[in-house]
């Protein structure tokens, strides 16, 4: 008889990851990266486009763990150095676009769902691999 496991919310995910040992740490890194990915996805449509260099230059990156805590970052490649002038409104148009700010607020307001979706994708991947598919 299959045993059902119920995991609810961020705290549930956190407890489950702690019980999973090395596999949990791997999934934790993926989930933190998933939040950064979600911010990138939300930010890209908000970025003003002329030639599209900036939108193409925004990426999510996993960072080195620090003190057992996973980190990820949203970064802008060097050729779009001017991103901060658009983000903060000190560019030629004088508009504070705030694409990163708006994206971050939106993702963090829904971070439970983002983390849970990322966790479920990771677990489903493990199950597929275990089943040899």
């Amino acid at each position, binding site marked *: 008889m299959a045993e059902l496991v119920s995991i609810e919310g961020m705290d549930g995910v956190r407890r489950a990851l702690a019980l999973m040992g090395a596999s949990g740490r791997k999934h934790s890194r993926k989930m933190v990266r998933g939040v950064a990915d979600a911010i990138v996805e939300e930010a890209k449509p908000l970025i003003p486009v002329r030639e599209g260099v900036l939108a193409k230059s925004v990426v999510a990156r996993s960072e080195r763990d620090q003190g057992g805590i996973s980190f990820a970052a949203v970064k802008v490649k060097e050729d779009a150095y001017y991103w*901060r*002038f658009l983000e*903060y409104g*000190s560019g030629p148009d004088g508009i*504070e676009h*705030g694409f990163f*700010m708006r994206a*971050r*607020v*939106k993702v963090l307001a829904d971070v439970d769902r983002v983390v849970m979706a990322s966790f479920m994708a990771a677990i489903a991947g493990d199950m597929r691999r275990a089943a040899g598919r």
Partner: protein
Amino acid sequence: MGPEEALASALFDAVGGTGLTCYQVVPQARDGGAAAEFPYVRIGRMVLTEWDTKTETGFDFAVRLHSRWRGGSRTLGQQMQATLFAAIHLQPLSIDNGTLLEIRRESSEIIDLADGEFDGVCEYRGQFELTP
């Protein structure tokens, strides 16, 4: 007064209380340049996200305060940012038709602009609930 206006007004009062000049929209000169009195603080991009419980409605918010100054060093801007921090970070700002639960500074940086201008950007985040 709506929640965005109430929050902006609370920040405007808090910044004004420090003696710094505060704008929501920087005045323009006839030639399109800035007619603002430097140094000044501008209330920048503000993002509110509504939350509801059974009994309360409120907002998470993020807001940027831009300190703008001209000169040969960053010191004045750092002093302005410190003044704003003392007046706003974890302070009980008065919000019309609402109660501030918390406001804290999340980040602070200084961007060099052309012609000896600087933009000191501080991002504050917090929550407030509406008075029923």
